[in-house]
């Protein structure tokens, strides 16, 4: 495989964004066509990288490394595509491409350079997934965060600006923590290359090891803010509920970026090879913090009264589950967690789009709140005979999509949500990892049940109970986007075998950091 391919997922969105900025807002068709073309090419590129990264076993040298300027790794910058990076690239590209039909419809009105910002977001995401050193991780993080600031504030209103204000302040502070952590690690080890760090950490002298751990912990806090672990994730539901629906749907992958970095760094730097003093550093924190996040997400979800917040708390549950699963540090659990990551990202993105379709809030400040649930009231049971009108096709479509979304999010059979949750939960019982695994297992099952309750209640209130509900007009693009996202979930439940095998190999590869190091330092 040509290693120059590795630079393209970063360079292409950058060039396209620059071109779109030059074209300006007048040539909207051309700008939109460029966006679609860029996302389509990104999907192809990511597929090519994924094909290149997937091999028969974990040990073969299929991790592609691109040395920028051909400088050797410790002096120059490297981009690394192993199985996990390729997977995340493909997920990002598919999500972006699926969101475009909806986004293009929404973004036709003038309102700032939103298409270039979307491309910059893709550039930042791809760079984060590909980079092989900590400082470039910071740079790409800032690129994607700057793009999200702009996207979160697209079509500003007082509510959106106020939520965006908190979001930006929290993330600026997290970036400062990021820098402090990075510089502490640099001060102790003298390098920021991840592979070199993985080599050096077992040999760090004991008198500076505490400093290294402090740096890693501060760095971890910065990512946990992004991954929205309790108590660092209070900003998330409000920001996501305030953003426009395609933007919120794209943000579904933002918490996964934090999860990705935590997974990568905890297994590469603090895996089993890291020496007795550093191995499994911070695992317990991830496990219990993840569980606390799930609890907060469940409570918030049961209390949420508008769809945006409901989706936001679903994000918290998903990210808490993933953090807890990473904390267990077991290859089989990690493989399940990756499956859950992919499925929950797609389903939550679809749910954000549905929320935007069911409760459109164009320009209005007030979110349409759902009515309080009133089981003895008349709304639910009365007028059985009068409302026998034929169901309009858009409502049937919305209802079906909502049902599929609920099934996938709650992890009920027969859809891929169940497969992912099963892949995540089954190994937890087998490894016998003590109280932590049992607690996480129970919590995830309970969270699934509570998701069913919350989704049922919301579905009843929207589709059955509300008599005055004006059927929202559905734009074609929105329907296409939702169908694409849910269709990929369905496809993953039908052809689940190859993806699951790929994920198992990914987890195996992540747990063998020697392979990664050998690829960077041949």
């Amino acid at each position, binding site marked *: 495989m040509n290693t120059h391919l590795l630079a393209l997922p970063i360079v292409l969105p950058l060039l396209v964004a620059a071109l779109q900025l030059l074209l300006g807002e007048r040539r909207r068709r051309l700008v939109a066509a460029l966006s679609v073309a860029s996302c389509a090419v990104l999907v192809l590129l990511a597929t090519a990288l994924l094909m290149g990264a997937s091999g028969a076993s974990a040990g073969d040298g299929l991790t592609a490394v691109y040395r920028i300027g051909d400088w050797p790794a410790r002096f120059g910058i490297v981009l690394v595509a192993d199985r996990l990076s390729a997977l995340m690239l493909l997920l990002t590209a598919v999500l972006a491409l699926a969101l475009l039909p909806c986004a293009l419809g929404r973004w036709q009105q003038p309102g700032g350079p939103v298409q270039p910002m979307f491309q910059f977001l893709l550039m930042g995401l791809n760079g984060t997934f590909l980079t092989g050193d900590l400082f470039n991780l910071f740079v790409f993080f800032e690129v994607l965060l700057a793009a999200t600031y702009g996207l979160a504030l697209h079509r500003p209103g007082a509510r959106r600006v106020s939520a965006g204000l908190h979001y930006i302040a929290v993330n600026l502070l997290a970036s400062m923590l990021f820098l402090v952590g990075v510089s502490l690690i640099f*001060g102790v080890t003298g390098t920021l290359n991840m592979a070199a760090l993985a080599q050096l950490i077992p040999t760090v002298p004991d008198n500076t090891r505490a400093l290294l751990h402090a740096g890693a912990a501060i760095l971890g806090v910065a990512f946990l803010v992004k991954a929205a672990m309790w108590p660092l994730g209070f900003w998330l539901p409000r920001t996501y509920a305030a953003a426009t629906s395609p933007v919120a749907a794209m943000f579904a992958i933002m918490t996964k970026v934090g999860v990705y970095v935590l997974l990568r760094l905890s297994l590469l730097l603090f895996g089993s090879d890291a020496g007795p003093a550093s191995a499994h550093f911070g695992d317990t924190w991830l496990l219990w913090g993840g569980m606390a996040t799930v609890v907060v997400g469940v409570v918030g979800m049961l209390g949420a009264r508008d769809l945006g917040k409901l989706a936001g708390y679903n994000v918290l549950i998903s990210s808490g589950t993933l953090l807890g699963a990473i904390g267990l540090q077991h290859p089989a659990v990690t493989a399940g967690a990756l499956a859950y990551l992919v499925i929950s990202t797609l389903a939550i993105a679809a749910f954000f789009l549905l929320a935007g379709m069911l409760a459109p809030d164009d320009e209005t400040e007030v979110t349409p709140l759902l009515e309080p649930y009133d089981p003895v009231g008349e709304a639910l049971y009365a007028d059985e005979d009068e409302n026998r009108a034929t169901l309009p096709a858009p409502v049937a479509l919305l209802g079906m999509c909502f049902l599929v979304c609920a099934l996938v999010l709650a992890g009920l059979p027969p859809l891929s949500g169940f497969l992912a949750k099963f892949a995540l939960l089954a190994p937890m019982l087998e490894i016998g990892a003590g109280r932590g695994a049992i607690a996480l297992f129970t919590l995830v099952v309970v969270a699934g049940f509570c998701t069913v309750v919350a989704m049922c209640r919301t579905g009843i209130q929207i589709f059955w109970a509300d008599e005055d509900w004006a059927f929202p007009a559905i734009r074609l693009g929105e329907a296409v986007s939702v169908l694409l996202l849910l269709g990929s979930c369905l496809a993953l439940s039908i052809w689940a075998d190859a993806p699951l095998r790929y994920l198992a190999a990914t987890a195996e590869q992540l747990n063998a950091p020697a392979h990664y190091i050998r690829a960077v330092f041949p």
Partner: protein
Amino acid sequence: MEAVLALAIGVLAASGVWLLLRPRTFQVIIGLTLISYAVNLFIFCIGGLRTGADPVLRSGADITQYADPLPQALVLTAIVISFATTALFLVVLLASRGLTGNDHVDGKDGTP
């Protein structure tokens, strides 16, 4: 010199955190700026403090007498990025001030 620098970083960071927790948006942005100064100084000194040392290698000189150039490169990037994001934050503050009519971080004054 170490003590002076450590004190400077500590005072900057402490003032920044205090300001960050204040309710006015202007105080928040000044707080963030102070914290970013503290962080930049911190990165700058992470390579070790040395007076009059050269960051660029010359042939035949003793390598232990050089300043580490990498933190200086890192801090340059960090300064640019924090400068840009602060400017962006300032725009959002102004928008919030214009839309809500006051400069409270929640968009409304606590006082009725």
